[in-house]
């Protein structure tokens, strides 16, 4: 860190009593209300679709649930968790992207492998069971 950078950090630390811990971003009443309204809509619609049996196709219903769920997670991240590309010097979004990659590998990998294990499972006779390695 440069001397200038350090001096700047110290200066900001001296009056941290008022703005400490808001690096994650300032929430505003407007932001919370917008986030809440969007969340209510994004929750109500999938419940409505499922409870009212609105869509004939099962695949379409599942796709709609996934779509609304993902949209709501994004809304929560932005309006409630105050995520943006600059929070904590960009490290929050980096950690988030890393986590999303790991989660995607774990989820897709598990489903993929286990699906193939299930479909490729051969019925086994007692004789085969005995001779298993």
């Amino acid at each position, binding site marked *: *860190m440069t*001397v200038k950078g*350090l*001096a700047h*950090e110290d200066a*900001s*630390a001296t009056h*941290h*009593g008022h703005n*400490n*811990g*808001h*690096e*994650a971003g*300032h*929430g*505003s*009443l407007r932001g*919370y*209300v917008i*986030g*809440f309204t969007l*969340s*209510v809509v994004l*929750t109500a619609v*999938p*419940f409505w679709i*499922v*409870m009212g049996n609105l869509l004939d196709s*099962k695949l379409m*219903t*599942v796709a709609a*649930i*996934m779509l*609304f*769920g993902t949209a*709501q*997670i994004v809304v*929560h*991240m932005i309006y*409630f*968790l105050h995520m943006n590309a600059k*929070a*904590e010097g960009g*490290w*929050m979004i980096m*950690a*988030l992207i*890393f*986590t999303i990659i*790991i*989660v995607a590998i*774990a*989820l897709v990998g*598990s*489903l993929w492998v*286990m699906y193939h294990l299930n479909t490729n499972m051969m019925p086994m006779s007692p004789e085969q069971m005995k001779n298993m390695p």
Partner: protein
Amino acid sequence: MSNIDKSAPETPEFYLREDYHPEGSAGLGFWLYLMSDCLIFAVLFATYAVVGRNYAAGPSPSDLFDLKLVAINTGTLLLSSITFGFAMLSMERDHRNGTLMWLAVTGVFGLVFLGIELYEFSHLIQEGAGPQRSAFLSAFFTLVGTHGLHVTFGTIWLVVLMTQVSQHGLVTENRRRLMCLSMFWHFLDVVWIGVFSVVYLMGIVG
């Protein structure tokens, strides 16, 4: 570090103090904890996705789940999220009593959520659909139970912080703690979105 500070407090320091610790790193640290918690939930979600259809000739989601109850539960958690937001806004305006009031409202919503979830669990177990019935129910109780456990600890943390704020006011430490708890609380709401989408809604669709 301290002896140098005392000897020359006014002179500018052209070196990096060894234990230099930038203010506000608690937010990033707590975010990293939340991301690791996210991995725990991802593993539980993956388990549920893999074994969630193995009913062992037992009850399936459409036999068990009451979507109206889940909708009420989702509503309480959503409301608790915005009331926690209001608590944070009161905190930023230095309104101690307002903060305490909104925290109490959040806590009540948290308790209602937990009450409904415990009612659902006891109802399922009474019907013979306990965690030992099938792989689906084991995965269900583990995933939803872990979320409920997080909400329980979040509520305990909330009560502790309410005591702290009422005793010491909105000091720097309490502001930092409240910020961490708000992230925790909103994070649990994000996990719940996954739970009601994947477990309840998709379970009913089949």
